[in-house]
């Protein structure tokens, strides 16, 4: 083992002894001095996860989150120094982590937290502006989803769970499944409840269809979709940018 391999391995595994060759400056074993580095790594990465997954943290509580973050970060340290990207594998980890198996919705809540962060850092894009167009012209446009726009399909009421844990006046989450549209009008991403058909509409727009074609496809798959409400949500949320 090279010096830094031994150092890094022992940093992430508190059961390992302090690597050889590390001392206190008076010639004795490094002891607690090595633990300062262990602690810095664990605490700083735990804080990054706490910042990145606030709703998950609220749901499981601070102490449990800290312990769980410790398990995750030791097996999954960041791939590179951009901590804003850290934790992309955290939702998958939660889906496999036995102690939270009873919270089946937790991985999707983590995906929502992660999506909000990804949207926050995504590229800026011009809003899709239909000012001055007649309705036929609007329907012939091929708007795209802005880089900051994400959709999330869940078997759980993930939007309601997010709201209930974020807004003190929010109602208890309903039963059933919910889809979410994350979009940014300027800088602050907002998760919107995405009504039935919304995922299909978003996919159609990603596929560079015209607005009319995307609406037709959505109604073909979801005949009862409130297409006017869906299109209005896409327009007002800032989800769209002009197509090429």
């Amino acid at each position, binding site marked *: 083992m090279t010096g830094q*391999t031994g150092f890094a391995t022992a940093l992430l595994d508190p059961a390992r002894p302090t690597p050889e060759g590390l001392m206190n400056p008076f010639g004795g074993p*490094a002891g607690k001095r090595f633990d300062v580095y262990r602690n810095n790594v664990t605490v700083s990465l735990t804080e*990054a996860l706490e910042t990145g997954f606030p709703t998950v943290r609220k749901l499981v509580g601070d102490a449990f989150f800290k312990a769980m973050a410790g398990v995750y970060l030791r097996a999954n340290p960041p791939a590179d120094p951009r901590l804003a990207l850290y934790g992309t594998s955290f939702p998958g980890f939660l889906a496999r982590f036995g102690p939270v198996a009873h919270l089946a919705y937790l991985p999707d809540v983590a995906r929502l937290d992660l999506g909000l962060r990804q949207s926050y850092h995504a590229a800026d894009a011009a809003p899709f502006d239909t000012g001055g167009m007649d309705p036929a012209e609007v329907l012939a446009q091929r708007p795209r989803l802005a880089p900051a726009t994400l959709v999330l399909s869940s078997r759980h009421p993930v939007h309601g769970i997010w709201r209930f844990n974020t807004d003190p006046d929010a109602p208890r989450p309903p039963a059933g499944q919910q889809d979410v549209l994350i979009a940014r009008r300027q800088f602050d991403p907002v998760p919107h409840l995405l009504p039935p058909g919304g995922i299909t509409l978003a996919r159609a727009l990603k596929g560079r269809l015209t607005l009319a074609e995307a609406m037709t496809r959505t109604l073909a798959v979801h005949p009862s979709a409130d297409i006017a409400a869906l299109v209005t949500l896409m327009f007002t949320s800032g989800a769209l940018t002009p197509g090429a």
Partner: protein
Amino acid sequence: MLDSSAPRALPAAAGIGYKAQHFTGLMADPGPVAWLEIHAENYMGAGGRPLAQLRALAERFPISVHGVGLSIGGEAPLDADHLSRLRHLCDWLEPASFSEHLAWSTHETGFLNDLLPLPYTDATLARVCDHIDRVQEVLGRRMLLENPSTYLAFAESEMDEVSFLSEIARRTGCGLLLDVNNVFVSATNQGWDARAYVDAFPLDAVGEIHLGGHDEDTDDHGRPLLIDSHGRAVIDPVWTLYAHTIARTGPRPTLIEWDNDVPPLPELLAEAARAAAILTPVEAAR
């Protein structure tokens, strides 16, 4: 050939580490703050508020880009992707300064998010110099290298930290960032004389000074063990060491670092004013 004349050099005045919550306050009234320092890795996203704020700040303040993740002291080659991200940032921002640390943080297991120590040997010296040559070549500018806070010693070390840093500056032509709090922390932890460290330091190479707060702990034997936490005000003995340094160097760009438990802006401005007061009389007397 390295271009050491930055388009807008950092002024020999007080600056603070930028925190997003202070954006509005700083734009309204920066008080004694003449420049700002940002952590490079926080501005590597594709867009959104962080980059918009940085563009606005850069129109008003000279900016120092301070990297915390390049792992210059790492055994592995520098991460080419990360280096090109740094280059992209420096290319569009055209900062007044770029600095990094004498430390490592990346290993094949991943990024460990701490400034980890390295032994001071001929082999590590050669490796660090190679890495700095590469950084300066890719960025097309002279960089500053910061002295670390350290908590332990290496049996294999062959030279003292000041000799190690002096030799790096001599071989690579890089400048140095003298973190006076780190000197105080390391000197306490390692049993060195902090003032002697400053006196031996190649002060001509110092392009920037850092000041910050630290926490106090003890080691297994009850000896003081200071932790570089950046979570509180600069303590008086560090101010004294800073005044001693400035008396020798003359005015140098001086940064107040406060990264954890970040206080309201007025408290940071008061720290910056204290640094400015130490910088100014020197300027007047010269």
